[in-house]
């Protein structure tokens, strides 16, 4: 054995047994890596197109205090801040739950999964829903200020996750009871890796999110106290 037996590559997604040119990777392996990284980079910098959301739902657009992507990436605090003029676009409607769609770190994930996931959620959530909020240059915690402005008990924040090299289109869902600025990440629940066909499909994700929303409403909390009794994958960030 001087070269790694080819069948071992099937044991892991890791890039093992790569073909070489001298000590370097050969051309095909080098360009395959470049393509994966290019897709991840494009996802990070993709512009959030809200037209598909507007076509399907009643949608209000808001922008965080981060004016552009470069600022957003360096100032997570601004991505969590809702300027007053933006908050003024939101008014309480008496609804109990709000769905927010944030671009996060992958507008590509939002473009692929937000509409079908919301459609799957609508039939499962029940109760009254506020208009869908499309949040630009958003971090997860921006949902706290949005939820407070809408006067809802629960926000479901659907947001593009940080792209991995082989997963540029993963969507996360964060559920927060009584959202208000200052909520800690430990006070949320998360369903992550929504990314069919490789990750969670939309129907399964919607079922898990709805379960968490119903539990949150019944027990009047979200976060680590809810985590222990659910079977869903929890990942906080």
């Amino acid at each position, binding site marked *: 054995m*001087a070269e*790694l037996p080819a069948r*071992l590559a099937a*044991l*892991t*997604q890791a890039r*093992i047994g*790569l073909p070489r040119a001298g*000590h370097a990777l050969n051309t095909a392996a080098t360009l395959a890596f470049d393509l994966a*990284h290019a897709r991840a980079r494009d996802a990070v910098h993709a512009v959030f197109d809200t037209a598909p959301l507007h076509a399907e739902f009643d949608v209000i657009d808001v922008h965080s205090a981060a004016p552009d992507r470069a600022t957003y990436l360096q100032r997570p605090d601004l991505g969590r801040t809702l300027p007053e003029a933006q908050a003024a676009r939101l008014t309480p409607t008496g609804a109990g739950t709000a769905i927010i769609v944030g671009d996060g770190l992958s507008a590509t994930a939002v473009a692929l999964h937000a509409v079908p996931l919301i459609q799957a959620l609508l039939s499962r959530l029940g109760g009254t829903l506020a208009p869908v909020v499309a949040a630009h240059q958003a971090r997860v915690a921006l949902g706290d200020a949005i939820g407070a402005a809408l006067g809802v008990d629960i926000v479901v924040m659907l947001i593009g996750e940080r792209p991995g090299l082989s997963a540029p289109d993963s969507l996360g869902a964060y559920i927060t009871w009584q959202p208000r600025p200052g909520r800690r990440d430990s006070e949320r629940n998360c369903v992550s890796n929504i990314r069919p066909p490789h990750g969670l499909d939309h129907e399964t994700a919607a079922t898990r999110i709805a379960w968490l929303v119903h539990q949150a409403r019944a027990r009047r909390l979200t976060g680590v106290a809810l985590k222990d009794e659910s079977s869903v994958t929890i990942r906080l960030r």
Partner: protein
Amino acid sequence: MAYYHDLGGTRHSFADLRGVMAAASPHRSGDVLAGVAAASAEQRVAARLVLADLPLASFLADLVIPYEADEVTRLIIDSHDENAFAAIAHLTVGGLRDWLLSNAADGGVISALAPGLTPEMVAAVTKIMRNQDLIAVARKIRVITRFRGTIGLPGRLSVRLQPNHPTDDPAGIAAAILDGLLLGSGDAVIGINPAGDSVAAAHTLLRLLDDLRQAYAIPTQSCVLTHVTNTLKLIEAGAPVDLCFQSIGGTEGTNSGFGIDLALLTEAQAATLALGRGTIGHDVMYFETGQGSALSAGAHHGVDQQTLEARAYGVARAFRPLLVNSVVGFIGPEYLYDGKQILRAALEDHCCGKLLGLPMGLDICYTNHAEADQNDMDGILTLAGVAGVNFIMGVPGADDIMLGYQSTSFHDALYLRDVLGLRPAPEFEAWLLASGITDMAGRLTTSPTSLALPALLDG
């Protein structure tokens, strides 16, 4: 105490020493996020001019974090060696830079000085050093450590083989280890970051590592990079623990966020040493650090991230580590925005660690939301090799599928050894040759090796 410098009719004032230190740092996003960065490019140079004229003894009197408030400060002050310091006590920070670059300061002389230097002194002097100075000074200093192999010798470059898997699957991990070994990696350590926090799973992985090491008689050490409290439990359970891993930071609060304090590290080091598993040496600690961890933990005390990183090395050196690894681009663009900032931090960290007498390695890496790519890593990798870095990471194809970031690959390590004429640790080099993996010139062979597939993979 306040500091100021006048430049062409403008007085640049700094409220205290930590303000001078923060303003003197090259621009980076984490210091901006913390609100401690220089307000202008000129103010940054003014801060460096203040630093250049500052006597080194100032750092023993004007502490960036109070003695009463922080056990890391107490460690730094209480362990300061005044006899070693006497040789440079008359110097300013600028004078120290000039001396370090002089021919009089060879590696042996600088190493003898290390106990007299505090983390704040080395942070200060590196703030007024260009990148080439950071390379030239670090290159003089060799820090050699031993367990089953000798790491850090002149002309050598070791590699941590990092075979992570998203579900800790033993077969998947074993396949990645085999890939790395066949590409000449693994002499620093074969170290797994476990996906989960389970002690039982870590025990399984430690057995896998030890079985492989013994089956192939590899003169290296293994590690599962789990929390120090887990390692203590594993030792108690009789697991084959070679090295004790822990992430550490430069303030008591940062370490508290990591769930550790100095007493716990002391206990863990003693428990690991008691196993007596090292054959040619007994350096048993493996630490990881990285600029920005203190701000991330909300425990930065208004101190800039490079100074806090140097203070983490102040913690590390109290425990005679085999390996210290600055994971330089992992934390994300809100701390180090792009390839330029990651490069600067890598060279700073490596130089500061070597000045303090530590066996520095670098995880040269980036995330997909940082403004960086493999070309940036190639540059940092090459410069780190020139600077004499003790070890780098070897990740399959540079893509860590568990941690979700890009580091350096087995192939990158081969490149670096090749272009700079560097060789693996001598014991590991002899093993690679005996196994038929490399030839006398250190090149990969095309002939069969004497390695047989482990039973786990021989299906």
